[in-house]
C-alpha cells in the first residue's frame, strides 16, 4: 500500500534526523559513561548486620559437654533393588587403544556395591569444619593419582588443600588429565605413557563444595572424583560401604553424603549426628534405590 511505504520512509527519515546517536534517543555507542571508583576493601553495604553467632552454638560442635574427641563411623547401605550394571566394555572389545584399554573388563564404577548391599565410593564430609579445627598439614610425600588400563586409580579421592598430587600412568598409551573444579583452576594436561615419576604435579588451592570430576579427553569413559578439603573430617566408603571419621570434637555435626549415581548427586545434604566425648557414634546411612540415576 502506498501509505505504508510513506510511513516507512517517514520513519526512516525521522530516525535519520533524530540522529539515534549523540542526542535524543539515548546516544547508543557514543553515549557518555561515568565511572565510579570504588575502594579495594568494600564494606558489604546492603547486607544486614551479620547474624549474631551464638557462642558455643550446637552447630559448630564446640559445645562443652566434655573434651575428649569422639569418632563417627558406619556404613552406607543401599535399600531396595539396585539395577545390575555390566562393565563399560569387556575384555578384548573393539575399542580405541584396545590392547591397553580392553586388556581387562572395564568395570562401571558408577555404582559399586559390596557385602550386604554396602555402597562403595560414597563421600561423607563436612562442608565447613567447626571453628578452630586445625587445617591438615600437607604430607611430605605426594598423593598418587594413577591410571592403568585406561582407568583412574583411585576412582575417588579426598585430598587436603595445598597437598601435592602426582599424576602417574601405567599405560603405554597417552592420557590427559582434565579437571572441572568450581573454585580451583582447572587442569588440562597430558600424561606421558609409563610415567612412574609423575611429571604432572599440582595441588588444589581451595576446598570445594562438592567433589569435582576429573576425566581423560582421549578416553571418554575415564572419570574420577576429587574432593579437596581444608579440614580432616572427610571420608570415602570402602568396597563394602564402611567409613570412619576420627577425632571429631564432641557435639552436634552436620555431614554431607554425596555419591555420583544419586539424583542431584546428594544422597543426604544434611546428615546430623551427635558425637559424645571419647565415644564412637555409629550410623547406618540409607541410600534408597529410588534415588539412583544411572
Amino acid at each position: 500500500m502506498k501509505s505504508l511505504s510513506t510511513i516507512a520512509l517517514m520513519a526512516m527519515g525521522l530516525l535519520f534526523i533524530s540522529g539515534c546517536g549523540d542526542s535524543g534517543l539515548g546516544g547508543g555507542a557514543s553515549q557518555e559513561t561515568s565511572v565510579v571508583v570504588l575502594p579495594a576493601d568494600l564494606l558489604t553495604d546492603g547486607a544486614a548486620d551479620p547474624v549474631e553467632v551464638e557462642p558455643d552454638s550446637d552447630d559448630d560442635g564446640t559445645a562443652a559437654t566434655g573434651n575428649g574427641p569422639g569418632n563417627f563411623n558406619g556404613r552406607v547401605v543401599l535399600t531396595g533393588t539396585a539395577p545390575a550394571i555390566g562393565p563399560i566394555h569387556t575384555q578384548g572389545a573393539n575399542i580405541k587403544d584396545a590392547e591397553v584399554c580392553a586388556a581387562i573388563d572395564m568395570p562401571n564404577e558408577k555404582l559399586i556395591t559390596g557385602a550386604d548391599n554396602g555402597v562403595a565410593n560414597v563421600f561423607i564430609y563436612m562442608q565447613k569444619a567447626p571453628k578452630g579445627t586445625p587445617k591438615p598439614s600437607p604430607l611430605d610425600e605426594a598423593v598418587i593419582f594413577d591410571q592403568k588400563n585406561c582407568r583412574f586409580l583411585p576412582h575417588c579421592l579426598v585430598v587436603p588443600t595445598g597437598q601435592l598430587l602426582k599424576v602417574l600412568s601405567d599405560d603405554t598409551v597417552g592420557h590427559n588429565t582434565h579437571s572441572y573444579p568450581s573454585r580451583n583452576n582447572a587442569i588440562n594436561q597430558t600424561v606421558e605413557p609409563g610415567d612412574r615419576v609423575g611429571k604432572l604435579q599440582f595441588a588444589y588451592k581451595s576446598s570445594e563444595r562438592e567433589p569435582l570430576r576429573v576425566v581423560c579427553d582421549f578416553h571418554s569413559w575415564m572419570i574420577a572424583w576429587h574432593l579437596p578439603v581444608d579440614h580432616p573430617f572427610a571420608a570415602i566408603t570402602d568396597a563394602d560401604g564402611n567409613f570412619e571419621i576420627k577425632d571429631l570434637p564432641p557435639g552436634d555435626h552436620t555431614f554431607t553424603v554425596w555419591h555420583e549415581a544419586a539424583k542431584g548427586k546428594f544422597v543426604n545434604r544434611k546428615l546430623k549426628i551427635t558425637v559424645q566425648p571419647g565415644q564412637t557414634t555409629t550410623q547406618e546411612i540409607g541410600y534408597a534405590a529410588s534415588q539412583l540415576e544411572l
Partner: protein
Amino acid sequence: MLMLINRISIPLFASVILTIAGCSDGGNSSFVYGPTTTGLMPEAQNGIGDLTGVKSHLDVRFGNPQEVRFWSKLPLEAGGEFGSVAETPNSSAAVKELNLQFEDPPEAFDDGERLLQFVSGNAASADQTPEVAVIVSWDPEEGLAKLKSKLTTVPAAGDEIVLDGGTVLQSGRKLYQRHCSHCHGTSGDGDGPTAEYLKPRPRDYRHGVFKFTSTQGPAKVSRGDLERILRNGIPGTYMPSFVPMLDEDELDHVVEYVRFLAMRGEFERRLAGELASDFSKDAVKNRIAADEARKDIVEELTEVLSEDITDALEFVGDGIADDWSAADEEDALITPSIARVPDTVESRRIGRELFLSKDIACADCHGINGQGNGPQTTIFEKNPVTDQLYPESGLHDVWDNVNQPRNLTQGIYRGGRRPVDLFRRVHAGIKGSRMPSFKNLEHEKIWHLVNYTLSIPFESEPGRSAPTE
C-alpha cells in the same frame, strides 16, 4: 485540502510512533546476568528483605554501562591519578580548597575543570554515587587544589582520592560499544545481535578464558595477547583486525574494557557458583523432592546471605585479582627453552611420527592426515556441568560449542602462524577447548611437531612430508 493534510499527517503520526517505539528506557543499555546467576532460586538472585542477593553484589562492584564502576581491587589500569587528602580542612563550612598529595603528581593547571573523586572516607560510599568535586586549579608545589564549588561532606586527612578516575574505561566503553558490542554483546557475553549468524561464535568473555594466549596453561590471558588479537584479528573467523582503525591508545582502552567485562563475568559466575550447589533452581527441586520444605531452604539461604557471603565475596574477589595480575608477569609467558629446531625433512619426519604416535595421539582428534576428522569427533559426550548428553557428536568446549579440531591442511592458524605461536598452542593447549597442554613434552619434540604441522598444507599427498622434486 483536508485530504492532503490527512495523507501527510497520518503517516507522519504513525512514523513518529514507530520511531520512538523501539527506543524505550531512554536508549540506556544494561548488562545481562549469566546463566549461573539466572539458574539460582529467585531469593538468591534478588536477595531476601534487606539482605543483598547475587545481582546486587555484582551491580555494586561493576555498575551498569552508563555508570561503570571500577573496583580498585581489580588489576585494571582504569586511568586516573591516585592520591590522598594531605590535611583535613579546618573549617567545616565552605570547603573550597584541599591539600592533596599524589603518588605521581599531575602537572600544574590553572584554568581547567577536572573531576576529583573520593574513593574512601566520609565523602565516599560504595552504594550511592560518591561525591565528585570539580578542580579548577592545581598547584603541585603547595599541593593545593582549588574546587569549583564547596563540598557537602568534609573529607579527612588520608582519604583516598582519584583525579580523572576511570578515563580509560570511559573511552574503552565507548569504543567497545561502537566496534565490538554488535558481536560480543554489551556484557561481553558473545551474544550480540550478529552473533547468531556467526560460526564460530564470538567469544563469551564471562568465563575469563581466552583461547589464544602466550601464557602458561593455567594462567589467564595477558594484555599483550589481547592486543595482538585486536591487531591481527583471528584468521579463519569473523574477528577482524582493528589496526589502523584504532590507534595505539585506543587499542589499550579497548583491551582494558574487555578485561573489565571478563572480570565482571568471572566474578558473577564464581559468586553464583558458590550458591549454586545448594540454592540453584535444580538443587531446590531435588531438595523438595527429598522432602525438604521450601521455607527451610529459604531460611538456610537467609543465613548464608547474611554471614557466609562475606567470605565468598572476599575469596572470589581475591582469586580474580591474583589470577589476572599474575597473567601479565614475566613468568607467566611461555618461552621455549631452545630455539626452533631447523625445519628439515628429518625434523618433519620425526614430527609426523610423534603426530601419529599413541603417546601424543594428535591423530585421535586431528585425524591421521591432519584434516580435523579424527575418531574423537564422532563420540557423543555429556556436558560436565549438567550431566546431559550434548545433542551433537564430537568434543565440546567450555562454551558448549562443538570443538572442531583444527583442519591443519588449510594452513589457517587462528592464534597466529608464527612458529612460536604454534609452540605455545601445543605447550599450553588451547584454553577452554579440548586441546590439552603438552607441557611435559620436551621442547625439541614440540618443535618437531611444529615443523611437521607447518608443512602439512604443502604436502603433495598426506603424510608425504618431504617435498617432491
